[in-house]
């Protein structure tokens, strides 16, 4: 049986990087595959962040954009569609992890599982993928990057382990 996979988009990768939690997803191996599309990695994320090589905790994988059938192709970018294509092409349970509402809506409309990037961060933190001191150090930067309503930001800031 295939391992469940998480497909991370640029919004969550950038937020993790900005907060100093970029290697937190390494926590999931070997329980889950962490997938990043080559478009997201090579065109959206790595050229704008000081990272020279792909992380050991993720598999950067080519996505077949031709496989995606849609009328309104312009609702999402090509890197976004590559996340959808990767999730749709993966075997087993796959979840698209993003903080972007439009990408999440499209994923759900296409019967994919979706998870808020912030929920993913909380899960990682409570399961000890991010230490308490790392969390305390990075949470302010994370919240300024993802611009959430005060109520949600407060809940994130006061997450208990």
């Amino acid at each position: 049986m295939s391992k469940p996979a998480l497909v991370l988009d640029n919004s969550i990768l950038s937020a993790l990087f900005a907060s100093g939690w970029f290697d937190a997803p390494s926590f999931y191996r070997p329980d889950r595959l962490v997938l990043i599309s080559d478009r997201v990695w090579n065109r959206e994320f790595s050229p704008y962040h000081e990272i020279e090589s792909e992380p050991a905790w993720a598999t950067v994988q080519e996505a077949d954009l031709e496989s995606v059938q849609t009328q309104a192709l312009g609702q999402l970018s090509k890197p976004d569609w590559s996340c959808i294509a990767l999730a749709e092409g993966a075997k087993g349970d796959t979840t698209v992890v993003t903080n972007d509402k439009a990408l999440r809506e499209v994923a759900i409309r296409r019967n994919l599982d979706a998870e808020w990037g912030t929920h993913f961060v909380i899960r990682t933190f409570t399961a000890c993928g991010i230490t308490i001191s790392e969390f305390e150090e990075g949470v302010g930067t994370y919240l300024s990057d993802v611009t959430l309503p005060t109520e949600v930001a407060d809940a994130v800031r006061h997450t208990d382990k």
Partner: protein
Amino acid sequence: MANAQPGRDVSQRGPAEYLDPLAPLSSQFQQIKSMLEFVFDDHEELLQDLTDDILALPPEERFTMSHEVLREHVEDQFGSTDAFTAILPESNPAKLPAFLEQVFDTLLTDVLEGVFFHRNPQDHLALAALFQTLEYSIRRLDEVEDQEAKNRVASSMLAILSRLQHILADSPESLPAEAIWDTAYGLHYLTTEDSGPDFPNPVGTSFDEVKEHVIGFGAVIAYARLDISLSRGAELAGVSSEEFRANLDRYDIEPRFGPNSVAELYEDGIDE
């Protein structure tokens, strides 16, 4: 300046009616012409002459002095502006700004729909920037108080409307470069005295740079008004997601990230 109103499911819509960015112009312009019919005997000829005279001016005059050209044409036809004003009450001029704002908003909405169905809809974005500029000019007319400032705003509006009238008469296959130049000039002259972000004077700037500014502004409008992703907004603008976020900040537009509530945060039901 880029007002926000996203949030519709577009997945089931068909692309055919949104392929031509100039298509919505014709019907909306017909509405404007129908209004002119009530006021002018030969509105077609007047429109043609007025458009030609305005477009013959260099940009620095076109976007500041076109109201004078309109005044001269009105005086030619009616003898004086007072005589013209005397017949206006029957045409209900007080409703004109609201009518035009509605026309420009409809044009903006229609042209932006093309963003959903084109991978690289540059003409749609440039026209969106142009219609947003026109819509903003209506709001500025209401905001500014002294007559000189009103005249300058009216001149910018007249300059852009003249360009649109000229484009419609030519029926080009794609948006001509002049429309992009005029949008950039309009944005510059309309924003020199307001409190929002400034747009640089296009004089001495290359066309590629001007186009980049106009398309970039169009992408911000698209993001503000359509339910598209941040990454798509960046793709439309031809910049990185980080640069696009900085552009959104200039116009006080927040990225649409979620969740909206604590309940929504936990609704995914995924647990370790």
